[in-house]
């Protein structure tokens, strides 16, 4: 079973990397970008076949390691 965990910075947390990317896009002449926030995507292959169990496992993984919930939010998806 394939799954994806997406980790993003919470609103209000300054994202200097996102700002730098935003500036780089502007200097490349890519127009119409209002702002950029950078995050992380984890593609995870699971042994379990039960989507309910999978979701619980992914939440545990995100809470305990993948995200720092002081500054980051996460979203888990079982892709199938």
């Amino acid at each position: 079973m394939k799954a994806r965990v997406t980790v993003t910075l919470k609103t209000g947390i300054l994202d200097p990397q996102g700002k730098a990317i935003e500036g780089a896009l502007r200097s490349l002449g890519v127009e119409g970008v209002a702002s950029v926030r950078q995050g992380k995507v984890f593609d995870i292959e699971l042994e379990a076949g039960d989507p309910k169990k999978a979701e619980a496992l992914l939440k545990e993984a995100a809470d305990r390691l993948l995200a720092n919930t002081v500054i980051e939010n996460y979203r888990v998806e079982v892709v199938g």
Partner: protein
Amino acid sequence: MKAAVLVFPGINRERDMARTLKLVSGSAPNMVWHAEHDLPAGTDLVVVPGGFSYGDYLRCGAIAARSPVMDAVRAFAGKGGLVLGVCNGFQILCEAGLLPGVLMRNENLRFICRDVYLKVERSDTPFTRGYNAGQVIRVPVAHGEGNYIADGETIAKLEGEGRVIFRYASPDGMIDPNWNHNGAINAIAGIVSERGNVLGMMPHPENHVEEAIGRTDGRGLFAGLTAALSKAA
């Protein structure tokens, strides 16, 4: 003093730290591998040194913070044991939940490697008894992620409880954005835990302890710790 210096893969400041501890306290620390489940018997100080544990993968300090040895450190701190984290060590202590907040990418996006001035806010802690409150010390920093931040409530609590121990300052001790190199909120360079027994700081006091290097401003921290621990023993 019976110090334990933690060693993680990718750490590179553990020898500087061990050298300083031996030089100032007179006794060499135990070097403790991250996979250990226990600290050496009689340990009275745990030091989490600087470097780039696990190559800063995922987030700085995130993987080291989940090492087996950190459970032992958590138990040690829970009993009031003294813990010092420097640079990556500070990041590890935050990731391990032993200190609040997080160290973000420096505001200017650059790795900063230079001497900075720190205002010592308090002298009544085991870590700073070798200094006077308000004293300015000059010590090096070397980090890309030292920009301290926490939610507003946590910052208010840290400030209200006098838990900010070091702040980036001008040479004459003024708190000024021009001297706050990494953009840390309230120019925070070092904080202590609620009980005051865990200190995390970005700068490297262990690198300014010998005349041959040019400055000895960092010595006070280790001399103070040695005195605090010999008094407690």
